[in-house]
């Protein structure tokens, strides 16, 4: 219970702070963000867009972990967990793409410009879209769980390359690209410590939110399966 209240307060604080804290030339107080040339208020997207991409990685990671668990123990509950995680993963993947595209229209001039990160998230969408197609095409429960588990583990191998490596070694528009003069992890990019604090609080908040949503998701799947089995036994 207490963590739900904590999460509520945290996300309220992050939303309010992320949108309304002022941007000034020379930040002094703890609530002031630095002026970043060319970005200005646009820089605040980092508090909401990056967590969605971060949750995509976590969700697909959980998918791979529970797929692996399923293959070892053959427990269908693990399959439900990996399915719920993948559902969230694809939702946040789409959110990261859409929020990025809307923002890019105003900051970079067009919705889509095949920046390395845009290209790689598009590839991820295709890879995990195929995972859902694969699942829905198999009738047998065990067969579906086994095949999709194998696919999910192989698919996750591509995630670190697409999210962490490829966009850093290629030139592009995102901060942290190879031609970015502030090269290095994206979070170091011209952010002062106030901005970093809100950014990390936002990451923590969204991560807790993810685990809450995931738990509700897999519980409902598991109960549905249990109920169906009971009905089958009775009928």
């Amino acid at each position, binding site marked *: 219970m207490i963590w739900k209240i904590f999460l509520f307060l945290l996300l309220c604080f992050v*939303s309010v702070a*992320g949108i309304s804290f002022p941007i000034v030339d020379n930040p002094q107080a703890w609530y002031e963000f630095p002026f970043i040339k060319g970005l200005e*208020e646009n820089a605040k*997207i980092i508090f909401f867009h990056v967590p969605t991409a971060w949750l995509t990685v976590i969700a697909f990671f959980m998918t791979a972990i529970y797929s692996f668990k399923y293959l070892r123990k053959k427990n269908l509950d693990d399959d439900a967990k990996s399915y719920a995680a993948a*559902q969230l993963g694809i939702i946040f993947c789409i959110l990261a793409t*859409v*929020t990025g595209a*809307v923002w890019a229209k*105003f*900051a970079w001039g067009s919705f889509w410009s095949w920046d390395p990160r845009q290209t790689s998230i598009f590839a991820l969408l295709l890879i995990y879209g195929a995972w859902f197609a694969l699942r829905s095409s198999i009738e047998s429960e065990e067969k579906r769980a086994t095949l999709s588990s194998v696919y999910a583990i192989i698919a996750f191998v591509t995630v670190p390359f697409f999210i962490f490596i490829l966009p850093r070694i290629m030139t592009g528009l995102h901060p942290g690209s190879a031609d970015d003069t502030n090269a290095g992890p994206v979070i170091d990019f011209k952010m002062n410590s106030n901005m970093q604090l809100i950014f990390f609080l936002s990451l923590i908040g969204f991560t807790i939110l993810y685990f809450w949503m995931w738990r509700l998701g897999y519980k409902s799947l598991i109960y549905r399966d249990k109920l169906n089995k009971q009905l089958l036994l009775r009928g």
Partner: protein
Amino acid sequence: MEFLEKNAIYIVMIIVLIVWVGVFLYLWNLDKRIKNIEKEIGEKK
């Protein structure tokens, strides 16, 4: 459009709204699934 270009803070707000729409859609989906479970159990809801 021009208004949004000059007042970038509203773009940030739109983005937050898009994120909440995504979370809302997930909850919607979850609600449907739970309603189906309730129906199968036989509770009128």
